[in-house]
């Protein structure tokens, strides 16, 4: 729990929650390495395509389905259409990473606030808010996506919106459950007794204490979102050729793994590396943000 609101004026200035967490995170080597790697990966995906000699849809008419080689300039090989796999994987990373980031961020913000408020206020409000979540749950996801497509046409931002609109529901339930347990605890009562406002109790006391499960859930959401996007693309509802994503590249590669294994390996390594890093980072963040482990 944070101490700054309680600190007597004479005492040395306490660390803020954020600075404290950062200090602990930076001591965690695995998490820091992951953070760097993720940063690098993001940078590579968004800047890398400018540096490779090939474009997203450029076909090398002399190199269909060639394995990784240094000579032809296709360092990681080409796909069945003669397009440079490294370039396509980097472009695919743009789509996958941004879908993952946006959808997860949306689910985090909406889900956590919604769940915390619902749990803390309780009573009829809680009931109404959670029934709304139930209703959202009962909408078939595919239906929602197809409806969105009919209304707005084919657009990649729809995927962001559709996935984001669905993913916050789980988060809200988890946070509500945590809040229900936490609000009975002594430190919340103490805060009450000291006259801390409700809003502040939720943001300064309840949410930081619920952060453990939330972070764990976020690290699970990211791969889920990336897979969901590839599933939609597979059905023709997501990204369209020549644009691609890691999920699409992997599903194409899986069909060809007997004859052209690099087509599966390259995007898989990128995806797996990203997911590993996210898991380590999530682990580190949970340790760093948990007020109890101070």
């Amino acid at each position, binding site marked *: 729990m944070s101490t700054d609101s309680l600190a007597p004026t004479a005492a040395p200035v306490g660390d803020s929650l954020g600075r404290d967490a950062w200090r602990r995170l930076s001591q965690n080597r695995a998490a820091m390495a992951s953070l760097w790697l993720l940063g690098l990966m993001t940078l590579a995906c968004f800047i890398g395509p400018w540096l490779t000699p090939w474009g997203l*849809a*450029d*076909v090398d*008419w002399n190199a*269909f*389905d060639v394995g990784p080689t240094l000579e032809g300039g296709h360092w990681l090989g080409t796909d*069945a*259409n*003669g*397009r440079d796999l490294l370039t396509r994987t980097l472009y695919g990373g743009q789509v996958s990473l941004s879908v993952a980031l946006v959808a997860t961020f949306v689910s985090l913000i909406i889900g956590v606030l919604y769940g915390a408020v619902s749990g803390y206020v309780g009573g009829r409000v809680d009931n109404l808010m959670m029934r709304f979540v139930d209703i959202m749950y009962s909408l078939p996801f595919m239906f929602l996506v197809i409806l969105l497509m009919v209304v707005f046409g*084919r657009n990649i931002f729809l995927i962001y919106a559709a996935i984001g609109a669905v993913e916050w529901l789980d988060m809200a339930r988890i946070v509500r459950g945590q809040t229900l347990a936490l609000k009975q605890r002594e430190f919340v009562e103490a805060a009450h007794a000291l006259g801390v406002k409700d809003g502040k109790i939720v943001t300064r006391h309840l949410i930081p204490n619920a952060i453990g499960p939330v972070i764990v859930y976020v690290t699970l959401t990211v791969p889920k979102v990336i897979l969901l996007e590839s599933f939609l693309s597979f059905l*023709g509802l997501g990204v*369209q*050729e*020549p644009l691609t994503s890691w999920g699409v590249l992997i599903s194409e590669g899986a*069909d*060809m793994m*007997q*004859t*052209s294994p690099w087509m599966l390996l390259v995007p898989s390594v990128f995806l797996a590396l990203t997911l590993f890093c996210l898991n380590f980072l999530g682990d580190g963040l949970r340790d760093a943000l948990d007020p109890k482990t101070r």
Partner: protein
Amino acid sequence: MVSMDAFRPLALAGLMATTSLGLCLPAADAQAATLQVGNGAEPSTLDPQKVSGNWESRITRQLFDRLVNYGPDGALVPGLAESWELSDDGRVITFRLREAQWSDGEPITADDAVFALQRLVTPATANHNANLYYPIVNARAINTGEAEPESLGVTALDSRTLEIRLSEPTAYFLQAMAMTEAAPLPRHLLTSGIEDWTRPGTMVASGPFVLTDWKPQDKVEVERNPRYYAADEVALEGVDFHAIEDTSALMNRFRSGELDIAYGAVPSARFEWAQENLSESLRVGPLIGSYFYMLNLREGTPLSDERVREALNLALDREVITERLLGMGQTPSYWFVPRTIASPTSASLDFHDQDMDSRRARARELLDQAGYGPDRPLELELSYNTLEDHKKIAVAIAAMWRPLGVEIELVNREAAVHFAGLRQGDFEIARYGFVATVNDPYDFLNAYAAGGSAAASTGYADPEYDALVEASTHELDADRRAALMSEAEQRLLEADVMLPIYDYVVVNLVSPDVKGWQPTTLDVHPLRYVSVDADAP
């Protein structure tokens, strides 16, 4: 002609041996078997007069015998008719029907055949091959709504004699009678006011098999028809037609032994691998079919400008697609009618022997004249039904056009949606495959003639073309007929109404346990003659 999703996996698959029930089964096979066939897309109907794809007609051909059937090698053999006679002037065909029953025990009569042919040309049926039957007296007038179906030149002389009167002698007519839409239909059932007569349990069959179950998106099950006139000769106990669209999935299921036959089940990327590892199952052969891109010619798209169409045609490098991209032995085509057909035509796109550089230069010039260029890119939508090889080809072609300043938006759609979109004219450039149902160039040319399926989709209308096609059907001299048809085809090509890509080859996987299955250039395989060696239980 039938639309075909090239390489749509039709897997005749996994053979599931069932134990013998001790009935008098046909000679050699002690154990009767159910043949497992991977059949490509989910059928949208099993009404033989409403089907449009070969994944549908493959099923209906097993359920409904025609007066004239295909033999095991694809040649015409007597079906429900035991014999027929052509009058000396070639204008009257008299079919003598054999004694046969529907699967519910009702006799199959000449009236059933009359009923079916009348229904076939009725506008409400909307059969997309109806204009193949225009040679029948009054058929055209009925099909265009100008005459009553009863006036069709088809008469039942008695319960087992059928007379068909043609307005002109027609070379291919007997082949048209072997098509699934010409099958006699159970009149007693269709006129009984029943709502959907094609449901399992309701549908009655005249063919070797009868429909028993239809699980949407899973499989269509048929069983041996005990009332079939040659039921003793049918070796299979039944056939399951699995709806599996994805080529890779088909190939995998064939390899795991779930499927005995997989039609078109090899994606080009794994063709070499299959040649090495599945050589005893791989059956490759020519197929009379044309893979091409249909262009929507209606006003309002850039494609209504002939210069644009010619530029797209010029810049399409067909050899790259057949040799480097697919490599399965397809012939690059500069024509519409495949050269594998009996009595081929000689028409060809005129730039056929020019080199790519001068073709590209010419394409640039044409686009420039049409007002497109780097500042004003030509934007078009190219749609294809979801399948690995269709995507590969579309991506490659989009890349060939990009240097000319043509920006292609690729749209993949599920097969049923794609072909429905084509019928409604809702496309700009669309992938299509025509596979012959009649081994005659007319089958292809007719599609672009008035009333033909491609003419309806693309909005193509040219009275002179129609006249040439029409004239060719009445010409009985082979050379003059070929010249007329070539002239007609040349007209199509000069107007650049389509982008021909290649002539098909068919690649099927057939388990060595399957006997009596023969490759045919029409890709028809009557399962009546097929059996499986079912040693394993």
